[in-house]
């Protein structure tokens, strides 16, 4: 088993939907991902399916489909069995070090995963992640050298 990659992030379906529909902490957190080409959003089809259904339910199916078209282009895709928790399984199978969720009990929830969880997965709420995200130290650890600043427009 390889170590988790500190530049790989998973957002659970509630955070993905809130990023689109609410803004606030969820958007602050995912803006950190969007504005850095070297930070990856990892998500399985199952995870995006959940978020798309939620968005279609609380907003509308057209918006959900357009969101899916966009997020499909940007995420790093991973696969896992349908019975696994989509966010946890995406994180473990995608080697992510960070999992963002509004479900603060997720880390202690008994889950029926088909792979052994890593101990170095950090499960945080979006506001905690957004507050702690330090691109300069992360860049030095992942890419090496001095942080050049954001390299993408998070609204593009």
């Amino acid at each position, binding site marked *: 088993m390889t170590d988790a990659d500190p530049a790989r992030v998973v957002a659970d*379906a*509630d955070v993905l939907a809130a990023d*689109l*529909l609410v803004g606030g902490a969820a958007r602050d957190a995912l803006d950190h991902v969007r504005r850095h080409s070297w930070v990856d959003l990892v998500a399985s089809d199952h995870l995006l399916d959940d978020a798309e*259904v*939620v968005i279609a339910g609380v*907003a509308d199916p057209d918006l959900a489909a357009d969101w899916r078209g966009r997020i499909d282009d940007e995420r790093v895709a991973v696969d896992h069995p349908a019975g696994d928790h989509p966010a946890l399984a995406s994180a473990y199978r995608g080697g992510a070090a960070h999992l963002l969720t*509004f479900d603060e009990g997720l880390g202690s929830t008994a889950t029926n995963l088909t792979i052994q969880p890593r101990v170095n997965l950090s499960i945080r709420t979006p506001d905690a992640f957004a507050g702690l995200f330090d691109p300069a130290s992360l860049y030095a650890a992942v890419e090496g050298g001095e942080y050049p600043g954001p390299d993408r427009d998070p609204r*593009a």
Partner: protein
Amino acid sequence: MTETWADLFERAEAYGTEVESIRERLREVRGDD
């Protein structure tokens, strides 16, 4: 053609969604109730 994030966020704003309604819907989708 995919939309920009700015366009998607602008369209989404019209729904006035709150985090709790998203969480409630996700619990329904996953059968966590």
